[in-house]
């Protein structure tokens, strides 16, 4: 009966086993990651490629999920991403503050074949700097890199902007899977793995209604 249950069962917030001290091996950390960017730049496609290894040429405009989760294994830590899609609420600038709340990472996506979407991406970065937690890790993704023959945003231009704003930067393609896992991995590596490092407030005694679990901490990393 009391055999060890799998620590990484999907959909459960998991903590490292009682004995292991924070920073020890086998630690599992969970982070909220939000996607931002203009409609149709490929936000949902990037997530679908990362989480399920799928790509649909005509991805519907929303993916109909509250959020998706995927884990990335680092040397001594397993990083579990809780990935929030905009559900289309970015279209008329109607994203709720709840969306940014507690996010420890963000991927701001633009389409390398569309200069306007790069301009909008810069606006989203500003919005994150204003609304989100000050320690948030932001990655800039120039998506649709497979369409380099229609390129309108130069790599150097985006790279310079990313460096100036301390953002991670990669050009990606949800279609060919180029750099998709890599960008999530890069974020996982940059995220602080100690409890105080992340944006959370370290509340205790919080209640997740409707689940049996009472969360120990709302901040990113498990104890």
């Amino acid at each position, binding site marked *: 009966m009391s055999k060890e249950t799998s620590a990484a069962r999907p959909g459960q917030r998991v903590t490292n086993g009682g004995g292991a001290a924070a920073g020890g091996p086998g630690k599992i950390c969970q982070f909220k990651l939000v996607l931002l960017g203009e409609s149709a730049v490929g936000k949902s496609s990037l997530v679908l490629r990362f989480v399920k290894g799928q790509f649909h040429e005509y991805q519907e405009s929303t993916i109909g999920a509250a959020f998706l989760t995927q884990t990335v294994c680092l040397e001594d830590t397993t990083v579990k991403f809780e990935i929030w899609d905009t559900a289309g609420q970015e279209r*008329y600038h109607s994203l*709720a503050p709840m969306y940014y709340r507690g996010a420890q990472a963000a991927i701001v996506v633009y389409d390398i074949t569309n200069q306007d979407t790069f301009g909008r991406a810069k606006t989203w970065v500003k919005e994150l700097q204003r609304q989100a937690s000050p320690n948030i890790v932001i990655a800039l993704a120039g998506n649709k890199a497979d369409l380099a023959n229609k390129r309108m945003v130069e790599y150097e231009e985006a790279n310079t902007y990313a460096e100036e704003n301390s953002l991670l930067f990669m050009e990606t393609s949800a279609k060919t899977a180029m750099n998709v896992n890599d960008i999530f991995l890069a974020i996982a590596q940059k995220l602080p793995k100690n409890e105080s490092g992340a944006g959370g407030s370290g509340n205790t005694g919080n209640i997740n*209604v*409707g689940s049996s679990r009472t969360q120990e901490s709302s901040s990113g990393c498990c104890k």
Partner: protein
Amino acid sequence: MDEEYDCIVLGTGLKECIISGMLSVSGKKVLHMDRNKYYGGESASITPLEDLFAKFEMPNPDESYGRTRDWNVDLIPKFLMANGQLVKLLIHTGVTRYLEFKSVEGSYVYKGNKISKVPSDDKEALTTDLLGMFEKRRFRNFLVFAQDFKEDDPSSWKAMPGFDPNTTPMSAVFAHFNLDRNTIDITGHALALYRDDEYLAKPALDCLKRIRLYSDSLARYGKSPYLYPLYGLGELPQGFARLSAIYGGTYMLDKPIDEIVFTDGKVSGVRSGSETAKCKQVYCDPTYVPDKVKQVGQVIRAICLLDHPVANTKDALSTQIIIPQKQVNRNSDIYVSMVSYTHQVAAKGWFVALVSTTVETADPEAEIKPGLDLLGPIKQKFVTVSPLFKPIDDGRESQLFISESYDATSHFETTCLDVLSIYNRGTGEDFDFSKVKHNLGDEEA
């Protein structure tokens, strides 16, 4: 927005967001708009703090209030009953996954110029300082009866011969158990959460159900029957709006609403400037249709910023205090609810208390004085007197469905009843929770 929708929802208050979510989940094409640039309408939590001061035409707060972004101040005070309708809605729709709650620490009732913890089960009935020794026994007997009562099992009614939950008035039940005036007050107002005494003459069933809701809610998380969401009540409408969006709902904030268009007495669209979106139905709050609602009363609410907890609550970081009407010679109760920095609604060390009641006189601020007096020194106070509106018809003819204003109750039970009723009138059926596809590409899949 020049498109055609099944339903257009106006206003992003909690009721409209729940309705919008339900309609989208049911497969309707929904456009949801708000004239404000923020979510929540009348049920928003205002942030940053300078926006609250500006709303009441006051100069910006000084530095003592800390980081103004840390504040999320509710305009309407309510708690969730842990076993109540709203929690059921949150769980069945999956919206609960966007939210985190804290249990409210204390539930108190005011008697004879002081406050005492609300006794809620037979054990607490015997230890409370609210009642005399013999009264405690009688109250305990009543609570045992109320806890054992089952609507569909007459054998559970035996403690009171001749009792029928659908006909016996509540006053007769209290008389049978020999409860005195004071105990009846505590039971009806602090446990059953009635705002006035009209329930005494009505069949006992409703009151017994309410007592059951209180004790079942208390059993869920311990300290009190109430829950409160981190970052304020304004998170609730945002959560349901996200549900609606995930199921295809379109959101537009900061959109002036100029006209609801009718064709042959039925709703046919909504105009904003030169654009008109066509639709078959409109759902909205009373502020969008002043000529289609009537005023049925007024509520006064005082938002009070404090730098200390409320006295005699063991320094609770959240609490509710009910002042039963009779204690202060009124016809309706005064509610005091307080939350604090621990709920991410105030800067470190700060508390937000709301004192509210149904207005009975021409001097509403004087009416809430007994509640304000319990708070101690108040750093800043914002008082609103809001009209309570009800729609003039049920909307079936015009297909314009209007919600009622948020009433003075301390919880969301009436809010949910209104929402479920509107959904039923609008769609001709009750909401089918099985339509929510929890596993659609979801993390639990």
